[in-house]
């Protein structure tokens, strides 16, 4: 519960705000291109597909890595440094069961939920910009979006990506924290390492998920 609160609820503001802004940006960007072809009705399809298939899971994973993954790595690394994990071991409590795996599982659980909220906020942001600012017809925006987005290809693919990224971030953050040197430099190294390795591996996994499974 505490881990889900830290990783999920505290990431909510940053995820929701980024989602809304990314959706709005996509609307603005897509509109300037599409309006040249008189195809601004397809804006909903563009925003929907881009956000659901790619940007939703990937950006959420990057944000959560930066916000919650680094915090988890730092927390575990500090526990290593201050010998709290050794204390647990002395009481014959396995620190993996008691400290490490709940945090990794929390990230795994939280990622698809945050990705879902990110996508909903992005679609809402895109809709508001498109309809309110650019004057695209609201019905054609949602209509083209609903026509283009397919449940099995796009929505299922999106959430399987989010779950994969959640598992990746959880494993990397907890592992980097767990193996850190018991020094102040070790804590900082594990935090930096988590963000760098997790972000890069999220992007690499995203590429291979797209390429091999067409998710």
């Amino acid at each position, binding site marked *: 519960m*505490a881990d889900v609160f830290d990783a999920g609820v505290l990431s909510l503001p940053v995820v929701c705000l980024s989602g809304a802004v990314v959706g709005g940006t996509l609307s603005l960007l897509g509109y300037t291109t599409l309006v040249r072809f008189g195809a601004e009705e397809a804006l909903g399809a563009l925003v929907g597909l881009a956000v659901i298939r790619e940007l939703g899971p990937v950006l959420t994973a990057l944000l959560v890595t930066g916000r919650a993954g680094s915090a988890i790595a730092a927390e575990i690394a500090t526990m290593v440094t201050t010998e709290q994990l050794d204390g647990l071991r002395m009481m014959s409590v396995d620190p993996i069961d008691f400290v490490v795996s709940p945090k990794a599982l929390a990230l795994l659980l939280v990622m698809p*939920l945050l990705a879902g909220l990110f996508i909903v906020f992005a679609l809402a942001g895109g809709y508001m910009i498109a309809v309110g600012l650019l004057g695209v017809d609201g019905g054609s925006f949602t209509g083209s979006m609903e026509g283009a987005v397919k449940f099995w290809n796009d929505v299922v693919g999106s959430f399987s990506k989010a779950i994969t990224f959640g598992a990746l971030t959880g494993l990397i953050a907890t592992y980097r924290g767990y193996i850190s040197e018991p020094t102040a430099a070790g804590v900082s190294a594990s935090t930096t390492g988590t963000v760098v390795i997790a972000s890069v591996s999220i992007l690499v996994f995203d590429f291979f998920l797209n390429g091999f499974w067409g998710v």
Partner: protein
Amino acid sequence: MQRSPLRDLIVGLFVFFGLASIGYLSINVGGLYYSGPSGFKLVATFDEVGDLKPRAAVVIAGVKVGQVVSIELDDILRARCELDVDPSLGLDVETSAAIMTAGLLGEKFVALEPGGADEMLESGDEIDRTVSALSIENLVGKFVNDSGLEED
């Protein structure tokens, strides 16, 4: 770690809204609905289905009434499509099936047009009157042939 009811409530709300957003995306945006197979199967055989795919819509007068279940070759090498449609429609045996395209380059779907016969189709029956998919390449080919552009 002490228990904190307020925090647990917030976590519960967070999970609830997360699941609600996933549900919204699946149902409203993704178009997922599960009515189950209606059990009323019709078979239509076409010479050419174009890029019709399983799960494509079956419509009557523009209203979706079912979907394509499977497409396979039959023993005389025509495309045999199994359609799952709403059993309450009461389609008669003169119903015809045509493969249409949404817009100029959009997705293919099967359009049914009821006939005027008294006898009704039963589940598993075959629709005899079918119109194949219109392929732009074939049309252009025909046009080129007819206009004599290819003559020596």
